[in-house]
Structure formats: C-alpha cells, structure tokens
C-alpha cells in the first residue's frame, strides 16, 4: 500500500462534499444574496443615489458596488468557512476527519478552499447583478480578482477559526453580526471616508475593513481612501494572523481533540 505525501483524494473528498452541500442549498447560497443586493441597489442606488452627486468622479450607484460585494463576501465567507467545520463538530462526524490520514494543511485547504470558491462565485454573481443596474468599468481587473480571491480566502479562514472556536450556534453568529457587519458599514461600504466628519473619520481609520474596501474599490475605479499597498498589506496581515491561529489550533488540538 503506497502512502501518498499529499492526500489529494482526501482534499478532493472534503472539497467536493462541501461544494455539493452548497449546490443542494443553492437558494440560500446564491439567490438570497442576489435578491439582497438588488434591494440594496433599489434603496441606495435608485432611491437615495439619484439625489446624490458623484463620489470621486463615479456615480453613487456604481461607487457602492465594491462595498456591496465585500459586504456579502465577508459574511458569506465567514458563514461558509465556519459552518463547514462546525457542522461535523456539532453532528459528531468530526471523528472521521480526526481519524483520517489527512494533515491539518490538507483539512484547511479543503474546507477553506470550498468556502472561498463559493464566495468568489458569489462575488462574481453580485458583480453581474450590479451591472444590470449600473454601468461598471473595472480599471484594474487583475487586482480586482486578486483582492476578491484574497479577501474570500482570508475571511473563509477566519470563519474556519470561528467554526472551531464556537461551542454553539449563537457563538457561530455573534462575530459576523456583532463585529464584521458593523465594521463593514463603518468601513465605507456605502460612502467615502472623506465624507465623514473628522472625529468619525479618525475612528473609521482604526477599522481594518476600511483598508480592505478601499483597496477593492481602487481596483474598480482607480481611486482610494488609503494607499493600495497599505490595503494589500492589511489584507495579507489579517490572512497571516489567521494562518498562525489555525496552525496553533491544530498543534494543540484546541476544541478538536480531548
């Protein structure tokens, strides 16, 4: 019996299992965010946006597209990443994962890979939906995709950590609801930080999400609240912080093994 150095079959088994689950719940996975995004456009784009002047040379409707995509991307990446690993813990099927010849890296690759794939598809679907409402021109397509992928992977990884940390469904939802969504709103999903009064502007700059949204918006329109390098650096820093936590989890067996 040959023992592979990399358990590709194992990674594929988890990845396709997770993707199949998403396909089974395609309505929750894709249709709900699309409907929500459309409603955002009707409210912010058509109703409010028509009364607003341009922001940084871009119509308000188009300006909010990157923020809207990221808002969904954050919540869905965290949800997918956390649910994928929390469910087997909750149901008890985690025993199989723990007793299988898969390395921590392979486990993370499969679960986070699947969660990120779903988010990337979702981001593109929202972009497609948005283009039905406003005309969108992406100035830096490569960087747009790069930010989309990096953000999806990072927040899926963050979700994975939450899925291991959570002891119940309430804990699973508390971080996305209490931390991520408010930070996203404060982080300029629907406005430029410059539009805030000075005090709130100072507060907003302490919000890490500002850097993520700003970078992503730059890839669309070439304008940003903060320098792109800082945006990229902040995203990568968050990604590596999550990696360190995940490796600690597997080294100690935190909430996975007794």
């Amino acid at each position, binding site marked *: 019996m040959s023992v592979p150095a990399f358990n590709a*079959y*194992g990674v594929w088994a988890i990845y396709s299992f997770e993707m199949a689950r998403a396909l089974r719940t395609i309505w929750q996975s894709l249709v709900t965010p699309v409907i929500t995004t459309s409603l955002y456009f009707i409210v912010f784009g058509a109703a409010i946006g028509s009364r607003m002047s341009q922001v940084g040379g871009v119509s308000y409707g188009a300006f909010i597209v990157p923020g809207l995509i990221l808002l969904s991307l954050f919540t869905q990446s965290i949800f997918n990443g956390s649910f994928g690993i929390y469910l087997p813990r909750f*149901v*008890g099927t985690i025993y199989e994962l*723990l007793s299988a*010849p898969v390395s921590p890296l392979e486990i993370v690759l499969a679960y986070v890979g699947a969660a990120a794939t779903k988010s990337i598809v979702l981001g593109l679907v929202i972009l497609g939906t948005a283009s039905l409402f406003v005309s969108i021109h992406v100035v830096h397509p490569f960087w747009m995709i790069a930010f989309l992928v990096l953000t999806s992977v990072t927040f899926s990884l963050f979700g994975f950590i939450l899925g291991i940390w959570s002891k119940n469904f309430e804990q699973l939802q508390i971080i996305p609801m209490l931390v991520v969504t408010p930070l996203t709103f404060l982080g300029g999903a629907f406005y430029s930080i410059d539009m805030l009064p000075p005090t709130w502007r100072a507060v907003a700059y302490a919000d890490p999400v500002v850097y993520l949204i700003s970078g992503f918006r730059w890839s669309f329109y070439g304008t940003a609240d903060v320098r792109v390098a800082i945006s990229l650096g902040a995203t990568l820093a968050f990604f590596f912080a999550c990696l360190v936590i995940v490796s600690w989890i597997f080294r100690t067996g935190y909430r996975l093994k007794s």
Partner: protein
Amino acid sequence: MNRIDLADVAGAGEYAANRREGEIARDAAPPIVSIRNLAKTYASGLEALKPINLDIRKGEIFALLGPNGAGKTTLINIVCGIVTPSGGKITAGGHDIKREYRAARMMIGLVPQELTTDRFESVWTTVSFSRGLFGRPPSPSYMERVLRDLSLWDKRHDQIQSLSGGMKRRVMIAKALSHEPTILFLDEPTAGVDVELRRDMWALVRRLRDGGVTIILTTHYIDEAEEMADRIGVINKGELILVEEKTLLMKKLGHKRLTLVLQEPMSAVPGELAEWHLTLKAGGNELEYNFDINAEHTGVPSLLGRLRDLGIGFKDLATTQSSLEDIFVSLVSERGGNSR
C-alpha cells in the same frame, strides 16, 4: 462463588504450556497493534487510562471488555487519533501513529459507538466520501461489494435520515470499511441493536476476520465477547487487569457448581461435610458445592460417597458452569471496582 486467584491467571509458565503451537507461531510475528505505556489523563484531572501495555495479534478478534466508563472508548480513540494520549507509544502495522500517522491511519477503520451520520447525504455519497478521505482512489466495484455485504446495496441512493437505526449502523460500518482497512475497531458494535442484527453483525465480523482483517471490539455484553473473541482483555477503571485467550480464560477461571436437591430438608450442614465447604440453599432443601473443573480431584465422587455413608438422600442433582459473566464480575469486584 469462589474467589479467583489473579496470580494464577497471570501465571506465565502454565500459560505458555497450555498454548497451541499455532498460537506460539502467531505470537512470534510482530503485533499488528502495539501499545506501550499508554496513559491518558483528561484536562479535568480524570485518569482515564493508567499505563497500558497491549499487543494485538494479526488476524485475531480481540474483545475489550469492561463496564461503562472503564476506558475502552478512550483507548480506541487514542489509537485512531481522536484523543491525544498523555504518554506512551503506539504502532499500527509497525507505523508509529503519531510520526507516521498517514500510513497507520490508512490501515485502520473505526466504527464509533455513537450513530453519527450526515443525515442528508445518500449512503453511496457518504461511503464514497470516507474512501476518498482515507486517500483511496474511487473503486465502484469494491464499494458495491461492501454495500452488498452489508445489505445496503438496495438503499445506496437513499438519504441516511430515512434509514432505520440498524441500517444506519451498517452505514457506519460501510464507511469504516470503505478504504479497505486491515485493522477494524468496533466500539460497542451491538449497543442498542436488536437480536437479529446482532447475529448478523457477529457473522459479518467473522467474515471480515476470515478475510484477514484484525478486529478489536469493545463491549460490555459478555456473551458477545464469549461468542466472538479469540482473546479477551478486561479493563476496569482505566487499568487493563487481564489479557487472555478466551478458551483458556474460561477454562482457568471457570468453576462448576453442583446442586443437590435433598429428600429431607436440613437446618445446618453436618460437621462431617465440612471439608467440602458446602452451602445450604433454598430453605435447607438444597446443598451447593463449588468446585474447580481443572483440579485433579474435584471432590465430587468423595462427596457423594460421604453423603451415602451419612444416609443423606437426594432426589435430583445438577451442575452449572460459570459463564464469562461470572468471571468478569468476579474480576472487576475483586479489584474493588463497581461500574462508574
């Protein structure tokens, strides 16, 4: 019943002398699972396993017997990688379960005690998932064989949640067998299972063993161990108190009981019968004598002769042999342990 001399059980000289040649040859082969000084203390301070040493022979059915909370599941879960040991060394097929976990785990299949399944998945999907997870390429023909063998073939497209409890347990077994393991751990395979399925399960375990799979099962049903096992380990309060060939164990620790139904009831055992340590039962209507089957002189003929001499008549007599259950209860209580 008489107390059992544990020193006798552990008597290596007699043990070796009683073994068949084939068994000695099997012993010479390296163990398929080797457990050395394995200990586990949980974070709560509970000492689940005291240092344990155990070798599992290739191709045997080994039953780990013990009351609830004795440490059976902890032991299995450590070997399978689900629980982290506090100390000790384990190899499976010669592979260290920590350093060479891939090689070790590919050999091992585990059927846990709890029925934990992905309820919305089909039987085929969940079993295929397990095979892939354990690093095996798809093999529809092998999968078909496993599912047919477990009478699951007709249900392969059914959602697991629609299956009965017994069928779900079969699915768990199919998952454990999906990657063609050579060592199979069955944790309480027949807990909460009806009689028919239990028989099926036993037959399946034998078929697997005949196919070369080594089987380690835990049970607190003594008849299960008696029926199935080649060797038995008794674990109590985290301590492996005995490992023995089943037949030898039954022979060595088995006692027989002779019950005499008296023609006339008596109020006390006559002094002339003191040497047999008889007990009076059933309101003075029965005399009971416990004896060792393996003793050179069981004492039965002389007892009957003495009764005749004393003119004590009896209208019926019966002998019963102690079961593994009696042996087990005696062993566990001897160690001062009650079920936790």
